[in-house]
């Protein structure tokens, strides 16, 4: 059953990938398809996979079905890293990814520790602390934008979240970082299952909970930050996709990670094809589309939460 669904989702991904190469406001000339749309769709797969997997990891390790890199403030942290780097005028790519990663991790850990009380992290508390962290970081980002007016418009557009990176080397680097992160987590998926049942249970079963929780948070923040670095903040992919995947194949994390990686790519390039064709010749940043669909989905989850089973 799990295999059949995975094959089906993979087929869908390939079809949408191919089809969306020919969707957009401009005519599908060879040049546009190869040099503009291919990198864009390719980026969509990387970004969608990374965000969906980060969502799966957060929802598992925190035993919180409402967690996602956007809601926890991880994306805002990464965005602050991008903005600070842009304004500093530095060019070193290593420093760039390091600073983006650093701020993303800092934001995640801040949300986590604000919400933690007596060793427990309440589901709604975590959402609220994510809101607090995001609001604060948002203000800091806007402050920096005011300081650097010549960059402001560019950065503002970047913040809306879109798939506009055309440098193939950059895409390749992010692909390697993201797939590295995901393959690190796959062998640990058994621990993620146990964390999803409870951190105390993980301790009872002999797992070094602080160490592995840190590894999970670092990897989820890391893959989030690397894709935010190229595409801005695209919200709710990390929330919607894991829930759909879980509804299809159940909560075991090994299959859940693989299916979410494919599903995330599928959903994001589908949304992006929509963003390109909804109001031609306008090209709407895909982050706007995912938020339009994602926010009501979040509401749906909150209502469903009253039963407390996802």
């Amino acid at each position, binding site marked *: 059953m799990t295999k059949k669904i995975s094959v089906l989702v993979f087929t869908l991904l390939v079809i949408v990938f191919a089809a969306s190469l020919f969707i957009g406001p401009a005519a599908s000339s060879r040049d546009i398809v190869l040099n503009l749309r291919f990198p864009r769709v390719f980026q969509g797969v990387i970004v969608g996979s990374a965000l969906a997997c980060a969502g799966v990891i957060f929802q598992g390790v925190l*035993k*919180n*079905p409402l967690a996602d890199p956007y809601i926890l403030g991880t994306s805002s942290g990464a965005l602050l890293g991008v903005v600070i780097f842009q304004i500093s005028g530095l060019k070193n790519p290593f420093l760039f990814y390091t600073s983006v990663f650093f701020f993303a991790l800092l934001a995640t850990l801040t949300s986590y520790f604000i919400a933690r009380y007596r060793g427990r992290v309440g589901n709604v508390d975590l959402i609220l602390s994510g809101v607090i962290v995001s609001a604060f970081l948002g203000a800091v980002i806007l402050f920096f934008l005011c300081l650097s007016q010549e960059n402001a418009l560019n950065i503002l557009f970047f913040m809306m979240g879109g798939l506009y990176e055309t440098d193939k080397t950059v895409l390749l680097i992010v692909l390697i970082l993201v797939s590295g992160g995901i393959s690190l987590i796959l*062998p*640990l998926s*058994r*621990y993620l*299952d*146990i964390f*999803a*049942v*409870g951190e*105390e*249970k993980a*301790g*009872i*079963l*002999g*797992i*070094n909970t602080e160490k592995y929780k840190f590894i999970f948070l670092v990897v989820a923040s890391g893959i989030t930050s690397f894709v935010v670095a190229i595409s801005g903040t695209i919200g709710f992919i990390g929330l919607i996709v894991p829930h759909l995947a*879980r509804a299809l194949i*159940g*909560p*075991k994390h*090994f299959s859940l990670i693989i299916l979410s990686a494919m599903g995330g790519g599928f959903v994001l390039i589908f949304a992006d094809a929509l963003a390109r064709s909804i109001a031609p010749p306008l090209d709407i940043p895909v982050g706007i589309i995912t938020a339009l669909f994602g926010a009501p989905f979040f509401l749906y989850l909150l209502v469903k939460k009253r039963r*407390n*089973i*996802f």
Partner: protein
Amino acid sequence: MKILEVENVVFSYNDAEILKGVSFSLEKGSLLSMLGANGSGKTTLLKIICGVLPFSEGRIKIVGKCLSEISRIELAKMRAFVPSEVHIPYNFSVLDIVLMGRSPHLKWWQAYGRKDREFVLDILESLKLSHLALRSINSLSSGEKQMALIAQALAQEPEILVLDEPTSHLDIKYKIEIFRLLDRMRKTNSLSIIMATHDISLALKYSSSSLFLAKGSNMYFGNMKDALATGIIERAYNLEQKVSEFI
């Protein structure tokens, strides 16, 4: 043979002493019932024994070894813990949940193997849960769920099983079933069991010894029938009536 020795254990939280020097011991293959009013420190003591909470003073020995000298993974093969109430937000199957109990016997990179699966299926069989193996843990009745969580604990192959009020929100059928299961496990597998409980009549019938806590101190450790005879139970719960009138 003493499998667990607890000596003068003190636990403080924010300057408040939650446990004020508790001592008792557990014989191999016996069932110890821990009783006391709500807030008397039962859950805290159980978590300390399990190594989940640190304690500030005193000494705990498991199979002759100090708790602090036992590694995480060793400890996970020595004791298992069934908490009083578990909420699991995702629909894991009963088989998935029980398999997790095999975790201490695997390296971090290993997946559950055929042997783990067979071991777990045997446990489900012996607990008469086989027919529920593929059902979601959240679709079970409270009693079935509690049995599944006990099965998970047994999958660890512990020497000591620690349970925190395992029967508190179950109907009488499952209360009896769980007490009888524990009684069977201790007799046939010489499993040693510590259980916090409020079910005085069942505890009286099945436990080998009893520990009464009151406001963080142990007011009594010994045979439960004597506790009933000497009015210990009434004092532990601040009762004005005689308990024997009700059981």
